[in-house]
């Protein structure tokens, strides 16, 4: 029996009704929060709440130093070379949009190409589509190989000197595969293309080293890694962030304002206009502390072990069709599947009644759904607070689904 040594750190699981245990299997959408993060937020609002940078007084200084300390934590966490390469945003979507609209918007031309993959989440697809429409550049897609992983040969075939940017997810939110982002970056750089990595599903699941990947930009959200919602990070190489146009102008990003013109602060503040999500950032700091305490390699190991179990149990049901690799170890805590002949929404409703909380739909990846020729699918996603009982509950409920819809009783 696989038991989670982390589950008791998450008060969400204590607060549930005793009558029906809920199996929360939707961490790829958002994670539950450890008590250390919740307590940090309470502490901040009870002891340290003041606006940052602008106060001369002690509380403001305390809030500022706590806020800025998180920038250092993020820098270390993803091994950026400088703290000024860490820009706080409201999440992955905003980070990716700023990269597209603040950096690439005026840098592409009609004979250029943008290379992404068919497995991208809408937030790493729709902005690039807008850029292609705006500039006339060609938006090209890397396909999947036979094992429904990123097809590296197809990537190599589509890479050429017209490609100005390659944007790719680190871990697919549907297929669960880990893409070879370091290899991709090396290949792309040979052709002079910039590389943008969507780290939403990778962060908090494995260690991420942006210098090792050598990507030009990396985006992630806090809330998928135990932090509060509404806070995220945009990492960019300093020389690129220096050239980025702010998409917001206003308070705290200026150094001097005249009647007709303004000079701006240095990085990172130049890109962080207005009062920031101070408590969110501080909560993110507490989440990173928690992740460090748990050790990322142990987290990765635990999720792998549980994923393997879920995978084996699922394939033992003949009606289950799994998307992504046929090899369990290629699923990073995410398994998408369907039940033959039963629409995923009908399955999810029965599962909900049985206390199993999994996602049904297109998972913000409609291009991938089209590619796989399915309207939608079910997705279970695991994190360190899940255990074997959650998987058992899912499997029992799936048998109930089959009984109900196949035999009408």
């Amino acid at each position, binding site marked *: 029996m696989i038991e989670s040594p982390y589950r008791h750190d998450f008060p969400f699981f204590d607060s549930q009704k005793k009558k029906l245990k809920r199996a929360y299997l939707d961490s790829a959408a958002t994670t539950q929060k450890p008590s250390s993060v919740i307590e940090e937020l309470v502490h901040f609002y009870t002891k340290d709440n003041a606006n940052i940078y602008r106060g001369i007084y002690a509380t403001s200084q305390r809030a500022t130093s706590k806020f800025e300390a998180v920038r250092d934590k993020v820098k270390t966490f993803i091994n950026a070379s400088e703290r000024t390469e860490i820009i706080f945003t409201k999440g992955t979507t905003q980070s990716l949009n700023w990269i597209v609209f603040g950096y690439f918007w005026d840098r592409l031309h009609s004979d250029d190409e943008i290379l992404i993959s068919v497995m991208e989440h809408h937030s790493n697809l729709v902005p690039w589509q807008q850029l292609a429409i705006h500039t006339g550049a060609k938006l090209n897609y890397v396909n999947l190989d036979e094992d429904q992983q990123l097809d590296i040969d197809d990537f190599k075939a589509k890479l050429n000197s017209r490609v100005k940017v390659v944007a790719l997810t680190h871990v697919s939110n549907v297929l669960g595969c880990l893409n070879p982002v370091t290899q991709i970056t090396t290949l792309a750089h040979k052709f002079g293309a910039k590389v943008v990595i969507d780290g939403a599903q990778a962060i908090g699941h494995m260690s991420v080293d942006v210098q090792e990947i050598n990507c030009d930009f990396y985006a992630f959200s806090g809330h998928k890694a135990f932090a509060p919602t509404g806070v995220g990070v945009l990492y960019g190489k300093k020389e690129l962030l220096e050239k980025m146009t702010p998409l917001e102008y206003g308070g705290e990003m200026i150094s001097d304002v005249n009647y007709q013109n303004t000079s701006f602060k240095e990085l990172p503040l130049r890109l962080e206009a207005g009062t920031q999500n101070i408590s969110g950032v501080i909560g993110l700091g507490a989440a990173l502390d928690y992740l460090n305490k748990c050790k990322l390699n142990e987290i990765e190991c635990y999720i792998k072990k549980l994923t393997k179990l879920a995978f084996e149990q699922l394939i033992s049901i003949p009606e289950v069709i799994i998307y992504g690799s046929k090899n369990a170890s290629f699923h990073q805590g995410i398994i998408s599947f369907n039940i033959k002949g039963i629409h*995923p*929404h*009908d399955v999810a409703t029965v599962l909900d009644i*049985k206390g199993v909380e999994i996602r049904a739909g297109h998972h913000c990846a409609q291009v991938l759904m089209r590619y796989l020729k399915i*309207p*939608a699918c079910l997705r279970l996603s695991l994190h360190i607070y899940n255990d074997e009982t959650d998987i058992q509950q899912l499997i029992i409920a799936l048998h109930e689904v089959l009984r*109900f*819809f196949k035999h*009408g009783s």
Partner: protein
Amino acid sequence: MDHDNLSTLYRQAILEAGEDPHNFGDLLRPTVSTELHNPTCGDVIILQLKISDHIIKDIKFKGQGCIISQASASIMTDLIKGKSLDQAKKLRIAFSQMITDNHFIDNDKLKDALIFKGVRKFPQRIKCATLVWNALEKSIQHVEEANG
């Protein structure tokens, strides 16, 4: 209890209509054709109407979706066939009230569509049941605008 809950949503008639829906397919030369998507799940419905003298002479649908959406389309198209545009609009409003209002008093005119009453206990599934009715509303709007 669980099972009661499930049966409230998936009534036998819904399961049957969802499995083998009526009026599924294409019309030859429809007066109006409307395609609607359920953006949360990716489901799609195409509704076709043949209208003359303000009467819906024939109606068909196609598309893909869950049992609730397929059953709703089957039962709605059966109900609407032969009705006037005004009657159809009234029925759409009645259906919408039934599925959202806990104090709804059964409107006999909804006939078989009354079995969708249980859907209001499942807020996530209301859109599945109403998708085809929304397509009907859009189709009628389109026809009325075209006729000035």
